[in-house]
């Protein structure tokens, strides 16, 4: 079991200038992540960057699933946010 805030902090702490929104039930989480470090990175690269931040938790199955939507600040703004 993991706390939403713990997941949020793990991700936000590892990505510069990021905004991270997390929802979840303790094992399955969904995150919206906005950060300029995603600029120029493919979807696979972006997700790998985030997965690297929760590697231990995923390997021990504390974190069972993490769905992600990743944006650069420009992409987020273009969505009308």
């Amino acid at each position: 079991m993991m706390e939403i805030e713990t997941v949020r902090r793990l991700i936000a702490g590892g990505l510069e200038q990021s905004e991270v929104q997390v929802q979840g039930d303790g094992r399955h989480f969904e995150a919206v992540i906005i950060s300029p470090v995603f600029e120029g990175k493919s979807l696979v690269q972006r997700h790998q960057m985030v997965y690297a931040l929760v590697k231990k938790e995923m390997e021990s199955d504390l974190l069972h699933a993490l769905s992600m939507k990743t944006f650069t600040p420009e992409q987020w703004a273009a969505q009308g946010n």
Partner: protein
Amino acid sequence: MVNERIKLLIDGSSVVLFMKGDRLFPQCGFSGKAIQILEACGAEFDTVNTLLDEEIRQGIKEFSSWPTIPQLYVNGEFVGGSDIMMDLYESGELHQILS
């Protein structure tokens, strides 16, 4: 060696989904979603049931540097998991990748 087995699977099929369960009976929601997306694209594809093979189940995660299953490979290249597939499907890119 498991990497050789994985390479054979990836090279032996233009579209192959490593998943939990199979096309008729996906065993997890994310694998089920991946199947739905591929079927919505009208794609021909093969599947590998990682629940039946622990070596492949662990091996594919290291092979792809990707910690979760499902995993889609098209023409030998890793495309992503169900999140990325949905993203690409919605943008129309998946249809291009699969054609």
